[in-house]
């Protein structure tokens, strides 16, 4: 076995403290490190012994990332299942483009569901930072459409 990668653990531990996390699990092709903060024990109301078993299909592991995570408040999500359209028809310009400033009530896109077109409007003012969907593609309920800032 190679030497313990102390630097990695220290870094993870620092990250743990810095980010006030409870645990970090770090896994790569041939290495996996998991550090857990000591913090006060939260007593679950369940049975005395909880099995260490993960779910049948492991959920995607949340990874500590340096990339700024979009906060949920900035996302505009689809209010329904349907097909999203960024413009009123293929020959028209998009309702909004990246960089546009939008105001409350302004139409951002349309969702076609059951042969009706439903406008999705901005709830508050902001600047379009990112458009997450392509025109004409299906979206599900709660699917992020835009990021505002």
């Amino acid at each position, binding site marked *: 076995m190679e030497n313990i990668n102390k630097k990695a653990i220290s870094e993870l531990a620092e990250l743990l403290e810095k980010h006030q996390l409870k645990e970090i699990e770090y896994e790569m092709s041939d290495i996996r490190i998991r550090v857990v903060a000591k913090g006060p024990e939260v007593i*679950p*109301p*369940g*049975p005395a*012994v*909880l*099995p260490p*078993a*993960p*779910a*049948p*299909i492991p*959920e995607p592991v949340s990874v500590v990332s340096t990339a700024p995570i979009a906060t949920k408040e900035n996302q505009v999500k689809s209010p*329904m*299942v*349907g*097909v999203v359209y960024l413009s009123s028809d293929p020959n028209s310009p998009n309702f909004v483009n990246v960089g546009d400033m939008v105001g409350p009530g302004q139409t951002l896109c349309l969702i076609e*569901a*059951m042969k009706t077109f439903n406008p999705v409007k901005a709830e508050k003012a902001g600047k379009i930072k990112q458009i997450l969907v392509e025109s004409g593609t*299906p979206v*599900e*309920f*709660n*699917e992020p459409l835009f990021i505002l800032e």
Partner: protein
Amino acid sequence: MFEKVLIANRGEIALRIHRACKEMGIKTVAIHSTADADAMHVRLADEAVCVGPAPARDSYLNKAAIISAALITGADAIHPGYGFLSENADFAEMVEAHGLTFIGPTPKMIRTMGDKVTAKATAIAAGLPVVPGSDGDVRTVDAAKIVAEKIGYPVIIKAAAGGGGKGMKVANNETELVEAFNLAKIEAKTAFGNDMVYIEKYLQTPRHIEVQVLADNYGTVVCLGERDCSLQRKHQKVLEESPSPALNKSQREHIMEVVRKAMEKIGYSNLGTIEFLYENGEFYFLEMNTRLQVEHPITEMVTGIDIVREQIRVASGAPLGYTQKDVRIEGHAIECRINAENPETFIPCPGKIGCWHTPGGLWVRVDSAMYSGYRVPPHYDSMVAKLIVFGRTRNAALMRLRRALEEFVIEGVETTIPLHQRIIKDFDFIDGQYNIHWLEKFLERNKVKS
């Protein structure tokens, strides 16, 4: 045959339908609410679409969202499962209007059988035995008195649009009838927005026995035997068995033939269940469920017929390919509904499943969408598993059930496993001597003891 089926349900039945589809080479689309993103039916399906927030009315009952999900995923057909939209004729019509197949009977049939008054009239016309009662709805107290006098007390007043015990009142004599009639009308109005009521003879210690039917689109109907679902608590079935310990072979064959002919007569297609009350050797039509039922597995075990597969097959337009004489009912099957509830107080207990270990071995079947680490959401019903056992005889099935319940481990939430263990130790149950009131009395007895 369908290429892709959207399963408009959740939990174990969504998984059951998914399994049938996979075994037929059909792709599956799961729908789910935001509360069910981690659910087993979502994890296993080929595609999944979130159709709304946690409350069922906005997700699993959201007709437009579900049909949109089918359209954007290119599904050919929608299987509604049980509950939710499974008996919603408007939904079935919408499905068809969008060029998709609704895996169930026709919207018209759903509508006819969904209304108690038209259902009863249809049953009578088709030759099914019914409880003596009023001809349709009863509008006045005086009319009610005349009907009650004719059929004899006790009588029960029921809401025409009702279900689930709401708007139901029993009267043992004329004095009680007046109050019961008025109360029933008020409850019916409140619960269903419709104060039409009707009157029936009240059966005192009936069993609940239901007959499973399966029909193709070309007039071939088969009866797949009966299920005894008399063990109920607050009108919820708890444990079911097939065949019923109350029927002998000739009684069974008789009612199956009556039902089969009735279904032929009304032109029923796809899957359905005729529920009867059974007392003193007589069957009385209760209602028809125009959908797959929770307890269908016990029928699968004793007939060797994969009911969900057959349902999908006939919905796609395939002929049944066999007739009543090819159906063989053998052995005995019992199903226990295991709920995440306190087994004494029946208070639901949603929460995170710790260890989940199901019993295995010969003729033990578990239908469940749970897994270790899964969090049972509080928004939906509390059933976490169906444990189904088969045996060559009823006693063999009971012995197997006993050992399987002992092997079942569910940690993290309380379940009704201890209730089932108590029931199957009871001599009345072992002897098959029970009716629809038995379980409530059994629970009362056990409460007094402790």
